[in-house]
């Protein structure tokens, strides 16, 4: 294993060991700070409840991300084709983006079912980087290449498909990586606002619930799962990005070692 990977793992192991030692040595009660070993045990004993909630949160995050990609890219293409559309609607896209989701969530919960409201919240947090980045990418095609397409009298649709969309791909993927994390944040924030119990309860609700019951180990266990989910989403999108750009983009170019 390379030092690049070994180092963070070593640091992580050291921190966990120190934490475990501190809790045992100082005899800190688990309702104040549970030891890593207790969190791990909780993860196993409560796996039935936690895994169900993890699945709920992941599903909403994935759905919100898919919506964000579909709607964000479609809007970016429409805006690029018709400037008046962009001028008319982009301000609203910005307003939706800058208003904190925590402030919008209660309103959405009035109008929508909790599950749908959480989905819409996660979408609202995630779509903007995709829209903004894709729009920038569509406008960033090399001007000489644009002249070349004009020279050969390419149609608007040909320009879009063969020039502007491929030119926008790296920008889109940059937005996607940000949006992945944001979708999870949006889903968690909305779940907390919604406070949905029962079968449809996500990980955030488990944290709130465990807080009320002073079940701190379970709180940590749920938090741990959220972190892992966030990391997994980031790594997956990073891999997608590298795969899509591996043949041509400078970001994947091999540098002389």
């Amino acid at each position, binding site marked *: 294993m390379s030092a690049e990977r070994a180092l963070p793992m070593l640091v992580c192991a050291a921190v966990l060991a120190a934490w475990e030692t501190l809790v045992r040595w100082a005899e800190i009660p688990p309702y104040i700070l549970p030891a890593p070993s207790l969190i791990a045990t909780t993860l196993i004993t409560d796996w039935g409840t936690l895994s169900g909630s993890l699945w709920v949160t992941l599903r909403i995050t994935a759905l919100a991300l898919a919506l964000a990609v579909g709607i964000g890219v479609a809007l970016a293409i429409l805006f690029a084709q018709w400037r008046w559309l962009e001028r008319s609607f982009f301000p609203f896209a910005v307003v939706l983006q800058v208003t904190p989701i925590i402030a919008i969530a209660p309103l959405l919960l009035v109008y929508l079912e909790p599950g749908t409201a959480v989905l819409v919240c996660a979408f609202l947090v995630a779509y903007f980087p995709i829209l903004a980045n894709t729009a920038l990418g569509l406008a960033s095609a*090399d001007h*000489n*290449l644009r*002249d*070349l*397409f*004009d*020279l*050969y*009298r*390419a149609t608007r649709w*040909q320009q879009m498909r*063969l*020039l502007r969309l*491929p*030119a926008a*791909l790296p920008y889109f993927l940059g937005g996607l990586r940000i949006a992945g994390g944001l979708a999870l944040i949006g889903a968690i924030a909305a779940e907390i606002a919604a406070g949905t119990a029962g079968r449809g309860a996500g990980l955030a609700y488990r944290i709130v619930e465990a807080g009320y019951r002073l079940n701190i180990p379970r709180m940590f266990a749920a938090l741990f799962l959220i972190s892992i989910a966030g990391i997994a989403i980031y790594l997956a999108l990073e891999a997608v990005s590298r795969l899509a750009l591996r*043949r*041509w*983009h*400078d970001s994947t*170019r091999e540098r002389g070692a």
Partner: protein
Amino acid sequence: MSLSIPPLVSLRGLAKSFANGTTALSGLDLDVRDGEFLSLLGPSGCGKSTALRLIANLSQPDGGTIDWRDGKRPEIGFVFQDATLMPWASIFENVWLPLRLRGTSRADAGSRIREVLDLVGLKEFEKAFPRELSGGMKMRVSIARALVLRPALLLMDEPFAALDEITRLKLNRDLLRLRAELGTTTVFVTHSVYESVYLSSRIAVFTQRPGRIATEIEIAYDGPRDEDFRVSPFYVEKCRATSRALEQVMAE
């Protein structure tokens, strides 16, 4: 001399200004004759690129006329200073582009694409991506792409300016060979007196901005343009005459 045959295109009194107030061209008169290799030479910023873009219909003149002999613009190939390849597309796909935009499928375009890639000496590289090629090779791809539709007119805007001297000489020779094989009428923008004399059958020297033609110099030479040509008294004399014309323009 082409006294009887009208020129492929004639520019009369062309003028072009930009929104920021720069007048790039004013009163540009120029004929492009069939089969010739015409170099446009002139100080930086005198409007050479602007003239090429007007000929290619990439920009519209504010005054003057562009008359095509056949009443309409023929197929035109354009080579920019940078190779201007699509980095996400293979060499094959880059050269395919002009055909693709005309509706030719990948399969139907294949043989023509291989033909032009062979012409520029890059037959084995059709699957490569632009970033895997050197600057000179990318420029060859750009030339292959410009030739793929068999244009009646090839416009080249300082195509070799960004390349090193050795690559540039090599590409100059290749360009002469292509000219001998295809006979495509070419308008070539350059800053180099030597390059223009070596390649051209005629040189049009521009004035400073706003650009128009100051002098035209014929390079009537029937022999092969080989290394002997580059040391011949004829070549040296033409270089001297061209340099003098350029100096005069700069002194105005």
